[in-house]
């Protein structure tokens, strides 16, 4: 556990030292949400855009957390620091745990800023309980994205090899998880693929939370599955991260 904290502290110190990365990872989602607002403003008044706002904001956090974490870990491999950490005695569990711990902070900041901007820009009138629950969903999704980034990074030998995973994982999330259209009308096989993607459960929870008649018990299973992704991906990342060539 001590090693996990050492790595977590180092990741945080590294993020602090890389101002450009830090600003981009917080500012970029805010700019994209502003562009979303501009797009939604062009829609006819009859189109109900409010139900898309928070799910799309969550997707932006999901996408950026995944890609940034995957690239940073691949950089560890290409620069030789990952190998050096292992030879210095850090276990792969400590490395994955440390990275997750380090990104907890960034994921929290991303979730807060994205949610705050979405509520303000789109003039969403949610009560405190709803806002807290929405924050929790986006935050959990951000952690899942970090874990997914760590897992995917084990299959890439250099930064460019991360990008083919965007059409493989991220784009299906847009079309098959209920982010844009309800998945009910999709073929069964496409619905199954959609249900394998973590965004599906985050979008489900968000759609339920913003309903006036929402009860926490309605979303407990989806919350559980989203949390399960964290542990499942942690195990997968531990198994796939190789200590020896």
């Amino acid at each position, binding site marked *: 556990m001590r*090693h996990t904290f*050492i790595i977590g502290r*180092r990741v945080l*110190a*590294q993020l602090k*030292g*890389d101002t450009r990365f830090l600003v981009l990872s917080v500012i970029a989602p805010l700019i994209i949400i502003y562009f979303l607002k501009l797009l939604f403003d062009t829609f006819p008044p009859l189109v109900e855009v409010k139900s898309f706002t928070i799910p799309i904001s969550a997707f932006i956090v999901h996408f950026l957390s995944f890609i940034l974490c995957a690239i940073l870990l691949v950089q560890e491999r290409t*620069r*030789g*620091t990952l*190998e*050096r*950490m*292992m*030879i*210095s*005695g*850090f276990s792969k569990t400590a490395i994955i745990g440390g990275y997750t711990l380090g990104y907890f902070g960034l994921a929290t900041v991303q979730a807060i800023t994205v949610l705050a901007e979405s509520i303000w820009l789109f003039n969403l009138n949610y009560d405190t309980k709803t806002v807290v629950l929405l924050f929790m969903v986006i935050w959990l999704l951000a952690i899942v994205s970090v874990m997914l980034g760590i897992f995917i990074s084990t299959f890439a030998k250099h930064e460019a090899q991360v990008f083919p995973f965007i059409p493989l994982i991220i784009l299906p999330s847009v079309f098959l998880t209920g982010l844009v259209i309800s998945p009910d009308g999709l073929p069964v096989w496409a619905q199954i693929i959609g249900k394998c993607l973590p965004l599906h459960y985050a979008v489900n929870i968000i759609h339920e939370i913003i309903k006036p008649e929402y009860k926490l018990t309605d979303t407990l299973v989806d919350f559980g599955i989203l949390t399960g992704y964290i542990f499942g991906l942690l195990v997968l990342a531990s198994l796939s991260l190789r*200590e*020896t*060539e």
Partner: protein
Amino acid sequence: MNAIEIVNLSKNFGKIGALNRMSLDVPEGTIYGLVGPNGSGKTTLIKALVGSLRPNSGFAKVLGLDPLKDKWELRKQIGYMPQSPALYDDLSARDNILFFGKEQNVPDLHQKTDEILSFAELTNRADDAVRTFSGGMKKRVSLCCALVHNPKIIFLDEPTAALDPYLKMLFWILFRKLAQSGVTIFVSTHQMDEAMLCDKVTILRNGEILAVDTPRNILHRGKTKLKIFDNHEEKTAVIDSTSENLADELKKFGLEKNISSVELQPDTIEDIILSIIRKKEKEEKS
């Protein structure tokens, strides 16, 4: 006692044999050099010894431990400096050293870090981000990270590549000091002249050992071109590079008044190592 024992170690990457049934013994407290051109298997061998690479066959023992089975015990006792600096650019030199030192539970880590930074002449830049450092400074920080926990063996993969001659000299003075204090230095280089600074040298090519010897004995494998100017007439002889042979050759000419000058052109260690490698290449072609 041997710090490293390697028996019939082989490693293949697909059809390419990176190490071919390699056997070596490295005595404790020596500077042991791996010399060879790029792609000769130096890095692969070092990675197999630090437990970052699984060999296909054969075995290695480092301080009597198996690099894979006893990795946790072994990693406390070894230092490793890879070819690339392998540092966190956004952290300071001090934070990089502290990070790798913390893992090893070094007592008085902060004091030890200060000492090692001072030794590497980096005290003034200790708190600057490594990304602002020159290549040579990064190498020095990387070396500090490998040394901070007082390892018994240090594996150095081309530590002086791209360093200026002054810094290279400083590195070798440090290696010698460490060896004198009982630390074993296992160092790879493609700069043949550095072989002279080692206690023992292994010459590698395509994953095979071509020669294992002391630098002095390797020098004896070379030739010396002897040029004698007798009344402005140049006479040339090629002799073995030993002083006895030189004396014999000079006796043939006698010490006559009309010998105006004697010129000796001994093979350098680089010439000799390259000739060993070329000889092997020729053997393979024929």
